[in-house]
């Protein structure tokens, strides 16, 4: 495969120029090698419209990225940058435009600086959460990373995709906690943002804005350049951590519970609250009584599930409450939060989960129950959908739907019903129920996310997931819910739902695209932003 519209002579000349710039061993063109850049969780696996690449190039320096970009401009080669390519569920390493050349930044793995007095790190795109964690541990630095569930991804890539983590709210919004970028623009120029624009600056990763407009935002979920360095604020290592679980018996108890946890999280008392419902385990086990109740449309409004939970001596909701800080202080904070919850939900019950005092020994790290809550990277999240004793016939991946909804209990119950009824009659209807818990990574709202199944052997499963995805995207938008992130296959659709004033936001980004990348070489179509010459490709 070669990029569409590129002549054979130009293609061969471009490949030759890539090899000259970075070495032939870092230019991948064989079928065997480029197959490794397929999206392992592609919802189009093996079908005609699966997004495939023509080649991959793996630079090791900013200068090599510049050379690649200039060559791409010279020959009109579409390129698609990835950091570590672990964006599974949201597209992996595959591009929007088939035939693109992937610029694989995995081997740009320098940790430029870590400062545990001012609490920041500056890293290249190939640095993973595991890498930075190990670096900090080896040097006994008193700072934490905030990592997403899978720790093998890139700090830069995750932040640019607006990825999220699990600790304190100011750190787990990874784009919001970044500070300073170095970017190779489509013309090969290098720009440093914020204080980095000041030669000799001493505060690149302390003060994000520098002087003048804050340009960083266009590089998040954008296609206006290739980020080659990025700074991040780090959390100081706290004295202690405690986690407690509160259990409440009724579905509508979520309304006061969310109100209280919002108040304490936004006030700096509480870490990320984690909502769960034991009824999801009954559902996974195929509980017949629960299944019968779920068949009734009235299940959204009546108290049948409350009664079922009570009959099984289960709470309807559980919420893990996490506290970081001085040990005595966080116990006092917990007591205060507990009293507030009991004042509004008198029959709430509390359970001790974990207490940790930092620093942890290696043995203590290994036994931490929920490692991402204290910034220890791992891959344990894959147990959610991998084969196990309770899931003997798993899929081969998932397609993530991540709608953003207001963070109130009332909005949660309403959104559950909207998405549940949208999928009613579908084989995937069980994904939205009256007990579907919200995710709280986005610290000012809920992501009522779910994963539709993916198969690398049964296209009908993928077709059903694609249909369901399109349905919930459209119905969500009709009800005011938009996605914060989606795979390439759905980026045009999601982009089209952000349509205020005749798609004014998209028209603005296209105007910027045409000015910054007139040949449209970088990540064409990314998040609905197509260059002028390919704009008719929008689906």
């Amino acid at each position, binding site marked *: 495969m070669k990029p569409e519209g590129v002549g054979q002579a130009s293609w061969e000349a471009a490949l030759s120029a890539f090899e000259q710039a970075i070495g032939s061993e870092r230019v991948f063109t064989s079928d065997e090698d480029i197959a490794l850049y397929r999206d392992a969780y592609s919802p189009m696996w093996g079908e005609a419209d699966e997004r495939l690449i023509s080649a991959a190039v793996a630079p090791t320096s900013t200068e090599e990225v510049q050379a690649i970009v200039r060559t791409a401009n010279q020959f009109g080669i579409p390129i698609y940058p990835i950091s570590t390519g672990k964006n599974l569920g949201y597209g992996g390493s595959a591009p929007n435009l088939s035939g693109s050349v992937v610029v694989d930044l995995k081997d740009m793995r320098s940790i430029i600086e870590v400062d545990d007095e001012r609490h920041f790190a500056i890293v290249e795109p190939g640095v993973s959460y595991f890498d930075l964690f190990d670096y900090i541990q080896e040097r006994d630095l008193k700072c934490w990373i905030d990592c997403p569930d899978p720790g093998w991804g890139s700090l830069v890539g995750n932040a640019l995709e607006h990825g999220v983590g699990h600790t304190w709210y100011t750190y787990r919004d990874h784009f919001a906690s970044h500070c300073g970028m170095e970017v190779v623009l489509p013309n090969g120029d290098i720009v440093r943002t914020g204080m980095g624009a000041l030669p000799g600056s001493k505060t690149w990763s302390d003060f994000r804005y520098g002087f003048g407009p804050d340009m960083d935002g266009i590089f998040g979920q954008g296609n206006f350049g290739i980020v080659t360095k990025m700074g991040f604020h780090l959390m100081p290592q706290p004295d202690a951590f405690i986690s407690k679980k509160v259990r409440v018996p009724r579905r509508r108890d979520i309304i006061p519970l969310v109100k209280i946890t919002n108040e304490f999280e936004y006030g700096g008392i509480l870490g990320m609250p984690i909502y769960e419902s034991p009824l999801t385990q009954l559902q996974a086990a195929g509980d017949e009584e629960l299944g019968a109740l779920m068949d009734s449309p009235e299940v959204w409004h009546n108290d049948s599930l409350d009664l079922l939970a009570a009959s099984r001596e289960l709470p309807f909701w559980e919420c893990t409450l996490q506290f970081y800080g001085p040990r005595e202080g966080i116990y006092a904070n917990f007591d205060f939060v507990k009293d507030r919850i009991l004042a509004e939900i008198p029959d709430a019950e509390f359970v001790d989960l974990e207490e940790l005092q930092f620093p942890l020994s*290696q043995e203590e790290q290994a036994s931490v129950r929920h*490692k991402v809550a204290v910034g220890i990277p791992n891959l344990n999240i894959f147990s959610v959908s991998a*084969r196990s004793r309770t899931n003997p016939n798993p899929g081969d991946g998932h397609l993530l739907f991540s709608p953003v909804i207001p963070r109130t209990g009332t909005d949660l119950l309403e959104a559950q019903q909207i998405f549940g009824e949208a999928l009613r009659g579908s084989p995937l209807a069980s994904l939205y129920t009256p007990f579907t818990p919200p995710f709280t990574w986005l610290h000012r709202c809920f992501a009522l996310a779910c994963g539709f199944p993916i198969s690398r052997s049964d296209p009908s499963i993928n077709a059903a997931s694609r249909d369901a995805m399109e349905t919930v995207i459209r119905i969500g938008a009709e009800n005011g819910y938009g996605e914060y992130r989606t795979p390439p296959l759905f980026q045009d659709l999601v982009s089209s739902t952000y349509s205020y004033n005749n798609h004014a936001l998209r028209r603005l980004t296209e105007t910027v695209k045409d000015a910054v990348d007139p040949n449209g070489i970088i990540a064409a179509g990314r998040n609905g932003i197509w260059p002028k010459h390919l704009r008719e490709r929008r689906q």
Partner: protein
Amino acid sequence: MIGKVAQIVLLSSTLVACTNDREIAAGADNAPKSQGQLVFEEHCIACHGSEIGNPGEPFMPGTGALDAKYDGTLPAVLTERTDLTPTVVAYFVRNGAGMMPFFRKTDIDDDELAALGLYLSNTEEEQ
């Protein structure tokens, strides 16, 4: 220049020995580690180690998957297997299995893959 601190290259061609839970699961000692063991610790052990998983999960994901698949007929922890060959290891690394994606050559290059195959097939000493 970037900041005032000299650039520190973490990993250009060298695999850094892990000092966290991944090392413990591999059985930390003072013996020098083979390249295959280092590759395993960097890329595999976070799913195929012997530690606990997330709350409610007794195993790490890869170990839990193999525990369910083999139901005791083969060890669930990869480093306890005696039936693996470099060819089998290479197949799964380059093709994936279920939720496990395949690994690109910028993750694990061919030399590292060969070393990993020797380590997991317990044939390093024969080389």
